[in-house]
C-alpha cells in the first residue's frame, strides 16, 4: 500500500486530493493535512469584504467531505519535511503540529510515499511595517480578514451618510506583491457599493500599486483586439478607472503604513505620502516556512526551497536577464528535482522568475509584481500531478508524464465590478498562454485569438455561476467532475 500525503486543502491541495482519491485504487491511501477546518472559495472573499456575502457563504467544513470520500483529514500545520526519514521514523515523513480539537499543539510524524506540497502563501504582512490587520491597514485575503474589512467599510459608509468625506486607498502593500487582480476587484466592488449606498460623492478613491502601469496584473499586461485596434490592457484598465473616477498611483513600493497614512517610494525614486481613512492593501506572498532535514538531521531547507520559501520544482532557476527569459523556464511536472516523490502545486511552487519585467527605483528597491498563480492554473496543475502520482503508484508510468506548464496553459479571470442580477458587471479576461511566448507570438507574446477582455453583466453572471459551481465541486457532490478546474 502506498500513501499520498497532501499538505494544504486550498484550491490546489483539495483538487489534488479529490482527483487522486478518484483514481487511486484502495488500499492506496490519500491523506490531507491542513490547518483550517474549513474550505474557502477565496475569490468570493471580495464579496465578504464588501458585506455582500457572509463567511458561511464562501466556506464549508472539510471533515464531512473527506469522510465521505474516504480521505483521512488531519487538521494540522506541516512544520518539517524529512524526505529521507530519520532514526525515529526511517520512512520519508512530515512533522505536523495539530491546530484543532483535543490534540491542538501536539506534534505528530506522518509518513508518506508521495508528497504534494500545496500549502499556498504565507501572507507576509511583516514585509512592510504597519501593514495588515495587525497594523493599520485591512485585507481580504482570508474570510476572517474580509469580514473585519466589511465592518470597517460599513462604519465609513455610515460616516459618509452623515456628510463626512473619506479617502479610500486600495492596492498592494509592498513593492513585490502579486495578486493585483484581487485588489483591483475589491476596488471596483467598493466603488460600486459606495454608489449603491449613494455616498460616492463623499469618497475619494485611490489605487496604489507596484505595477509599472495599470493593467499589468503581474502578467506583464496583455494585448487584446478592441475597437479595430490591438490595444494594451493598460488602455482598457485606465478607461475603467477614469469612468469610475478612481485615481491611480503606480510603480509604488509602500515602505510603511502609519495610522491614516502610507509612505511610499516610486520607481522614479521619489519618497511620497498618501493619507487615507480606509486602506485595503494586499501583502506580498512568501512560502509558509516549511523546513527540511536529511537522515542525519542536517538542515536541507535550501535544497528543497527557494529563499522566498517556495518549493523548487522542475523549473530553470538560473539567474538571467528579462531579455533571456523563456517559456521553457517554467515547470512542467512540478516534481522536486532532489526528491522525485515530492511535488509542489499552486502558489507553493517557486516560479523561476516574475512574468512582469523586473524594475528598480534609483535606490535599487525592486518595484514590480511577482508571478501570480491564480486559481485555474493551480487547479489544473494539481489535477495533473494527482493523476501522475496515481499512475506511478499503479505502476502505469515510471515518472511524471502529464504536464501542466503555465507556458502552455490558458487562464480565465473574472473580476467582479459590482453586484446585482441585472445591474452587476464584471471584467472577463482570458489569456493564452499565461507566460508570454515572444518566439511564437513575436509582437504580442500571446495569441490574439484567445487573449480577450470585456466588461459587462454577462461576466457578473459567470462570476456567480463559478462561485456556486466551484463550491459544489469542492463539496464533491454528484458529478463534481464535470466542473472543470
Amino acid at each position, binding site marked *: 500500500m502506498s500513501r499520498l500525503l497532501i499538505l494544504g486543502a486550498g484550491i490546489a491541495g483539495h483538487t489534488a486530493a479529490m482527483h487522486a482519491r478518484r483514481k487511486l485504487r484502495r488500499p492506496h491511501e490519500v491523506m490531507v493535512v491542513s490547518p483550517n477546518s474549513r474550505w474557502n472559495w477565496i475569490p468570493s472573499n471580495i464579496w465578504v469584504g464588501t458585506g455582500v456575502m457572509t463567511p458561511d457563504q464562501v466556506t464549508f467544513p472539510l471533515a464531512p467531505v473527506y469522510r465521505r470520500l474516504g480521505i483521512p483529514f488531519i487538521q494540522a500545520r506541516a512544520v518539517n519535511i524529512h524526505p529521507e526519514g530519520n532514526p525515529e521514523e526511517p520512512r520519508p515523513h512530515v512533522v505536523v503540529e495539530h491546530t484543532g480539537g483535543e490534540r491542538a499543539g501536539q506534534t505528530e510524524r506522518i509518513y508518506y510515499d508521495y508528497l504534494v506540497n500545496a500549502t499556498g502563501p504565507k501572507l507576509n504582512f511583516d514585509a512592510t511595517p504597519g501593514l495588515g490587520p495587525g497594523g493599520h491597514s485591512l485585507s481580504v485575503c482570508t474570510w476572517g480578514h474580509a469580514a473585519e474589512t466589511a465592518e470597517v467599510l460599513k462604519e465609513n459608509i455610515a460616516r459618509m451618510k452623515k456628510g463626512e468625506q473619506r479617502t479610500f486607498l486600495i492596492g498592494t502593500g509592498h513593492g513585490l506583491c502579486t495578486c493585483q487582480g484581487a485588489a483591483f476587484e475589491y476596488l471596483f466592488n467598493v466603488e460600486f457599493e459606495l454608489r449603491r449606498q449613494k455616498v460616492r460623492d463623499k469618497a475619494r478613491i485611490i489605487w496604489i500599486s507596484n505595477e509599472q502601469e495599470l493593467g499589468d496584473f503581474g502578467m506583464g499586461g496583455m494585448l487584446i483586439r478592441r475597437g479595430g485596434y490591438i490595444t494594451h490592457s493598460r488602455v482598457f484598465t485606465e478607461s475603467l478607472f477614469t469612468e469610475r*473616477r478612481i485615481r491611480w498611483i503606480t510603480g509604488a513600493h509602500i515602505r510603511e503604513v502609519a495610522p491614516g497614512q502610507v509612505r511610499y517610494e516610486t520607481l522614479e525614486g521619489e519618497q511620497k505620502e498618501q493619507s487615507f481613512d480606509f486602506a485595503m492593501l494586499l501583502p506580498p506572498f512568501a512560502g509558509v516556512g516549511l523546513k527540511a532535514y536529511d537522515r542525519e538531521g542536517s538542515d536541507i531547507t535550501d535544497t528543497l526551497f527557494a529563499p522566498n520559501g517556495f518549493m523548487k520544482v522542475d523549473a530553470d532557476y538560473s539567474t538571467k536577464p528579462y531579455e533571456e527569459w523563456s517559456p521553457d523556464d517554467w515547470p512542467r511536472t512540478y516534481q522536486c528535482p532532489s526528491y522525485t516523490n515530492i511535488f509542489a502545486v499552486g502558489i507553493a511552487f517557486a516560479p523561476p522568475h516574475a512574468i512582469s519585467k523586473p524594475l528598480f527605483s534609483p535606490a535599487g528597491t525592486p518595484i514590480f509584481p511577482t508571478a501570480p498563480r491564480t486559481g485555474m492554473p493551480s487547479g489544473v496543475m494539481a489535477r495533473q500531478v494527482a493523476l501522475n502520482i496515481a499512475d506511478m503508484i499503479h505502476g502505469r508510468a515510471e515518472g511524471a508524464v502529464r504536464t501542466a506548464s503555465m507556458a502552455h496553459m490558458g487562464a*480565465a479571470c473574472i473580476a467582479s465590478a459590482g453586484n446585482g442580477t441585472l445591474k452587476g*458587471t464584471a471584467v472577463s479576461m*482570458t489569456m493564452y498562454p499565461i507566460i508570454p511566448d515572444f518566439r511564437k507570438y513575436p509582437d504580442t507574446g500571446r495569441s490574439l485569438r484567445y487573449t*480577450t477582455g470585456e466588461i*459587462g453583466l*454577462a*461576466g457578473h453572471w459567470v462570476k456567480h455561476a463559478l462561485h456556486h459551481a466551484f463550491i459544489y465541486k469542492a463539496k464533491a457532490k454528484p458529478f463534481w467532475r464535470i466542473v472543470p478546474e
Partner: protein
Amino acid sequence: METTRKPYEQTYYPPVPTKFTRHMRTNLLWQLFRFLVINVKMLRMVRKH
C-alpha cells in the same frame, strides 16, 4: 471631488465609453449572448494545455 475630466489630469487621456457602449454592458439580449461566448472561451482555455 472631480465630476468631469479636466485637461492635463491623469483621467483626461484614457478613452471613456459612450452611452451606447455603457448601455450594451447591461443590455439583456446582448449580455445573454456574451454569457455564452465567455463560457465557450473559458472552456476552450481550460482545454488548451
